[in-house]
């Protein structure tokens, strides 16, 4: 007692004030240092969630959990994802069959799919030659002959609808540190595209060209040029003002810079090479999916650590938001309703046209870029309300719910602090701060495509479920 009390009696008071702001005023008037918290009831005030949180924060449990989380973030930070090749899904993706359609988010059946996903599925069935036309594709999709499965359950991620079929070309990203591999398909670039739910002839035609020209050329280029260190490229892109989820200008240039010498050496015609470069130049999104596979390779390495409360997956299928947590191994999805995305829209569209949050791309934020690295991308602050300060505040807030900072991927404007890394379920519930996700907005109906971009959050319910499930495993 005596030493602690004596040191209190001989120190200047520095008070952390929890709850009543009026005490701040009184204490300040008396010359004490005061820090008043921006406090909200933890766990949203639910006694059941609070009990789960208390169980997880019990010192004996917390000691094990903290160690498990340290291991998890070590794996995230230490993962070294390398782009090693490209290949057709049927050839490279585990468990892929000619009649499998992978989709974004947690598991969902055809009848419950959002408009954008249905549009993408029917387009993919036509593209694969499994259906004559879109009507036939709808019948087939509903027939039970098609296997629908989440990308995440096949080492894959898919942006927006995430629809991936057998003959689509995939990035192959190998995590050199931990030996696992992740896959994602190629960027289709512009707005009227399959992953956004568009499926007309122009969309299918582009997919055919990607299958016959772009994909094989990339595959051959990688065989010539060898692996590309994606974490290094991501880090450079952040320094150049991308947050690598909604802004991909710098990343696309860097990736193109890395691939171009090998692309030029491939056996394709100059005309075909020009088509590829024109395609890359047609939008800034070319590198978008590449970062998703990079993040997936790192996050999978951190999944399945006993007792860890680190989030390893955030994914949405347009109807439900799904969460996976390291300490709940395998494919244990915690789900809640997909949320609206708030942000500016392309000319000609209105908020009522928007579908709900969709895509596996929130693997960006799960790793620590995208919305978490908003402070590094002042050029797109319009997505978060308009000011650079607000963008910085988003990154700072994410620091409150994460375990560490990634020293390999840093933010110059914050004195080269690392990106916030390792979302901790306990911290999300204790602070009431939900992860922020930068994302695109797809039209609510099939066949139209992208109509805007903005930010969204997971439903709090998925974290509450996670806390209860984790508390059960430690009890």
């Amino acid at each position, binding site marked *: 007692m005596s030493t602690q009390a004596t040191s*209190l009696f001989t120190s200047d008071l520095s008070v952390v004030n*929890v709850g009543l702001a009026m005490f701040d005023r009184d204490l300040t008037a008396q010359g004490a240092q005061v*820090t008043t918290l921006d406090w909200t009831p933890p766990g949203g005030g639910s006694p059941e969630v609070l009990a789960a949180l208390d169980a997880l924060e019990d010192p004996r449990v917390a000691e094990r959990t903290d160690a498990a989380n340290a291991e998890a973030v070590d794996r995230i930070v230490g993962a070294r994802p390398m782009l090693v090749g490209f290949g057709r899904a049927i050839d490279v993706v585990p468990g892929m069959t000619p009649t499998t359609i992978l989709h974004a988010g947690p598991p969902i059946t055809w009848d419950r799919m959002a408009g954008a996903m249905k549009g993408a599925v029917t387009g993919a069935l036509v593209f694969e030659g499994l259906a004559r036309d879109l009507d036939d594709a709808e019948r087939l999709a509903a027939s039970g002959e098609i296997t629908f499965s989440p990308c995440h359950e096949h080492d894959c991620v898919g942006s927006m609808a995430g629809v991936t079929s057998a003959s689509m070309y995939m990035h192959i990203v190998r995590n050199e540190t931990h030996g696992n591999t992740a896959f994602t398909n190629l960027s289709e670039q512009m707005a009227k595209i399959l992953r956004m739910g568009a499926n007309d002839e122009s969309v299918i035609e582009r997919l055919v060209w990607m299958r016959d020209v772009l994909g094989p050329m990339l595959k051959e280029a990688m065989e010539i040029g060898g692996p590309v260190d994606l974490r290094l490229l991501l880090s450079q892109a952040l320094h150049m003002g991308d947050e690598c989820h909604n802004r991909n200008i710098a990343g696309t240039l860097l990736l193109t810079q890395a691939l171009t010498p090998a692309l030029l050496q491939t056996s394709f015609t100059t005309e075909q090479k020009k088509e590829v470069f024109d395609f890359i130049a047609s939008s800034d999104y070319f590198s978008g999916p590449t970062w998703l596979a990079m993040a997936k390779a790192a996050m999978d390495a951190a999944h399945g650590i006993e007792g860890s409360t680190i989030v390893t997956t955030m994914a949405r299928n347009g109807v439900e938001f799904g969460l996976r947590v390291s300490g709940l191994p395998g494919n244990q999805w915690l789900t809640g309703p997909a949320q609206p995305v708030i942000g500016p*829209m392309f000319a000609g569209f209105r908020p009522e046209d928007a579908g709900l949050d969709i895509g596996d791309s929130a693997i960006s934020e799960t790793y620590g870029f995208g919305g978490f690295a908003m402070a590094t991308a002042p050029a797109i602050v319009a997505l978060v309300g308009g000011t650079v300060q607000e963008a910085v505040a988003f990154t700072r807030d994410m620091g409150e719910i994460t375990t560490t900072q990634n020293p390999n991927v840093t933010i110059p404007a914050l004195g080269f602090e690392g990106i916030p890394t390792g979302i901790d379920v306990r911290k999300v519930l204790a602070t009431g701060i939900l992860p922020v996700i930068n994302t695109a907005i797809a039209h609510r109906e099939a066949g139209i495509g992208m109509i805007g971009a903005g930010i969204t959050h997971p439903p709090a319910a998925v974290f509450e479920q996670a806390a209860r499930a984790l508390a059960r495993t430690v009890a």
Partner: protein
Amino acid sequence: MSITAVVKKNTYFDSVSLMSISTRANQLPGVEQAFVAMGTEMNKGVLSNLGLLTADLGAAGTGDLMIVVEAGEGADHAALLSEVEELLVQKAPSARGGADTVTYRTVDSAARAIPEANLAIVAVNGAYAGREARKALENGLHVMVFSDNVPIEEEVRLKQLAHSKGLFMMGPDCGTAIINNVALCFGNAVRPGTVGVVAASGTGAQEVSVRIHALGAGISQLIGTGGRDLSEQVGGIMMIDGIRALADDPGTSVIVLVSKPPAPAVQDKVLAEIAGAGKPVVVYFVGGSEETVTAAGGHFAASTQDAALQAVRLGVDAHAAVDELAAKQVDEVCARLSPEQRYVRGLFCGGTLCDESMYALLEVSDNVWSNIQKDPGRRLTAGSSSVGHTFLDFGDDDFTNGRPHPMIDPSLRLARLVEEAEDPQVAVILMDFVLGFGAHEDPVGVTLPAIAQARKIASDAGRHLEIVGYVLGTDLDTPALAEQVAALEAAGVTVTRSSTETGHFARETARKAHRA
């Protein structure tokens, strides 16, 4: 419906800015639909689908900005267009959320970021208070829990944790402390000095500190242990740690212990600490026994006033003295009462002030009822009407559940004052007015209308109603003591000079009224 289209040559905006501008343009009054975009093939395709692609727009290049405004018949297109163009001019960012202000959401993050932090005040709903206090202790912070309604099991766990870490866990249910001359939560502005106080009672602690100040002395440290610290369950953990800390504190020359009636076994445990303190220890436990205290080597105090006086005499000024209550003052009051007026009604904010007056009256009558009565047969609840002599502690959990403490929100007490004035058997109404940090900014002022109403009710019925007020405060408080006393006296209220004197006044008037 009519449409205006403009192409601004060589005007580039990035796509995110354009989405934002477009969204705002669509919200302009009078605009049916607005389209602001670069002249890319894709954007021209969208316009074509909407049937809006004119030849001019079709000729726009990727470096040209297209503005298309669709508005109702008769709209002023030129004006709308200029409003849209204004959106293209970026305004300076708003000052909202300055880059330098850092806010923390949790004790963990604040404690991490502020290494010199040494104490946490927890004033959240009782259901969450334990958790926040635990977090603070785990981060090595001393804690003051202001919240009420914290389960006692939780209090025991927290205090055991605090004890094991050598930290103070002050409160709950006693929102008063003075650490290093800084009053925490409820507290008065008193001068620094050498009297250390450990108190299991909030207003008891305030009263003792104010009386010590009135005697010209001052406070070294005042540790509020929580109102239940001396219960069987808690076992005096914090009072014992407090005594030890003050015993070790070179700035403290004498120690005062204050509590409502403790559990006997706990009292013994606490008193056993006195011998080893190496400093004089004055003990005021409401209703406590002189023998027990003296046998343990302590100095027995019969009242808060007595506790303050003895502490000052033992540690600061051997000649300190206070004036006694004048018998004449009581006689004058009793002379004005009718035979029917026999009872005292005490309406208190402060638990110990209530207890002290009640114990004074118990010396002359058994007919004493209260929400804090130890005798369960004479216990009242928040909803009960008064019986005989009634003392209500409006700061008790029963009254505060879900609402602010009466020291902040006086509404329940004001209503009760008017109600008591209707009762023809009431002779005297006692009220305390607590000044200081955390308290209402003008406790007397906010009560004056109810006092006037109560007095009018009595006088309309042909009775004299004696209202006795005690203001707990110092000349350093805001508002100052003298100001509040003057306002009470102007309203015809008899003002007492201490909590102890208030009790004596109640006891003596009750004794005389009964005799009559």
